[in-house]
């Protein structure tokens, strides 16, 4: 249960299971609905370019009471990385909570942070979790080092 009572729409879980089982979806971006009552799928994609995903997250917006700021988001990413010494590749599903320190309104910050557990707990099969609050924390290399920690 989250601390906010915000609900997770069934679609969030269905899409996640597609990503987990189908291997065609690369990532899903989740957001809070405009009335901040439930978590919905904003976009899912098969695009394997990390930079494109990163740009979408960083450019996200949230508004409240007529003001707009940068937007927090949740995302899951089917992260693939090479093991050291040519021992092959591994896949891990990463759960990312993105809430920029700069340029966000306090209302979306509070609501996303207090609702995160609701989404994370309804998705089974997450291999790693990242909390990113600055752009450098959502760089490929940063995510790679935390995803592959201890397993390289």
């Amino acid at each position, binding site marked *: 249960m*989250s*601390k*906010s*009572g*915000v*609900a997770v729409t069934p679609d969030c879980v269905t899409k996640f299971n597609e990503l987990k089982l189908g291997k065609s979806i690369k990532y899903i971006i989740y957001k809070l609905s405009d*009335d*901040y*009552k*439930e978590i919905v799928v904003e976009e899912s994609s098969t695009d394997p370019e990390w930079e494109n995903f990163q740009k979408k997250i960083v450019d996200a917006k949230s508004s409240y*009471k*007529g003001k707009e700021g940068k937007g*927090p988001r949740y995302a899951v990413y089917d992260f693939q990385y090479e093991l050291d010494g040519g021992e092959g590749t591994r896949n891990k599903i990463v759960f990312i*909570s993105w*809430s*920029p*320190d700069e340029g*966000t309104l*306090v*209302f979306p*910050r*509070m*609501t*996303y*942070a*207090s609702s*995160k*557990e609701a989404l*994370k707990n309804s998705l089974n099969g997450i291999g790693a979790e990242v*909390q990113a*609050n*600055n752009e450098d924390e959502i760089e490929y290399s940063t995510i790679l080092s935390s995803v592959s920690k201890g397993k390289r």
Partner: protein
Amino acid sequence: MTATLSNTTAPNTADYGGDEISALVLDPGYSVTRAGFAGEDVPKSVIPSFYGIVPSLNGPKHLYGENAVHTPLPNIEIGNPVSQNGVVEDWDTATQLWEYAITSRLTNTKPSNPLTNGLNDKTDDLKQEMDGVETQERPLDENPLLMSETGWNTGKGREKLIEIAMENWGSPAFWLARSGVLSAFSAGKASALVIDVGAASTSITPVHDGLMLKKGTLRCPLAGNYISDQLRLIFSTAQPSVPLTPHYLINSKTPVDAGAPAQASYRTFPIGTEPNPSFRALQEERILTEFKESVVAVWSPGRLGGHNQHGGTNLDSARTQNARPFEMPDGYNQFFGVERYRATESLFDVKMALSDASHHAPTPNQTLPQMIAQSLSQIDVDIRPHLLSNVVVVGGSSLIYGFNERLKQELEAMYPGPRVRIFSPGSVVERKFSSWIGGSILASLGTFHQMWISKKEYDEHGPGIVEKRCK
């Protein structure tokens, strides 16, 4: 846009897409109690947590509010229901004071039963008249109440809070949230190390996945009041000493040169009616607060007791630069150089603590860096680096110039490996009221109605329900 709303009107529920509720949010601190309607940007009611005690025919009478504690009434004494250790000691007075914070500014159309709220003196006549109407006269029986609490509040203390809300105030629904968790969330972080620098305490609260980690939650006594005491020692030991005479003792003053003795005429009170020393102490505190806001700073880089690159000490550097003027209420004025930094240095470096018989120096384990180290040592080693890169600094006393830079430097020296990153809300209001603002947003969410502990549930399960539900 909320600024156009009047004090006594709850915000339009349509504004935040909520259901038909106008919840109240109460965030009590040692120095200030904050109350307001959920959904608003700032608390409308910010009152001192101190209260006045004056003699009356029916025994000591309590006075609440800004004007009451700052007016030198005959024999007035100042009390605080919360101890210096940040724990409520006098529950009856705390209940009345918090109720005042809410009813005086927010819901003043519905005062509670004057017999039981203690805001009036008891009389037997009134008792007879008021018998039988008690059940309808609850102060807050229309508004759900979200309250914040310290990280070290005990299970008993938590139960006491829901009892006050349900039994004394008639709240229809209640929620209790750790203030450190609210501050972490309002910074956009479900996991963070929250450092809240208040008046009586600095609280250190590790939060992981939205839950407070009780083991690492610590209270450090070095906070705003400690800095004030360091200033008192600096002033009293200066040659010549710096007078700390509050406004209420000054009739008039004449301008004098910097460092020259004050030339003022002082107010006297008829013998036997002088305000109690506790009143003077609170008035001194107001001057010291102004001094802290305009003069005091935290030294960096390096330690004030350390050496600079020219072979001298940083103390020498501080003596010769950046002096700031300050004028006391009696007209005494002076430039303060090294004193600016001296007052805060022992938050970080115990060797620089000033002390005397009544102000003991802290132990080496009580400095902020050492307390943070103790906190981190008690939590899972895997999440320590993560918390160090998500340090959230809030609280009024953290606004002292240079505080965050120095804290970062100390943490980096202690933990050279992980990256240390400090986040503080950009605006002063968000920094001072971070936990109230977090509570305001949470309680305003349309989805939060399913979280509240209702009166019915309380009646069914008793106060123990708070421990089960408000994790």
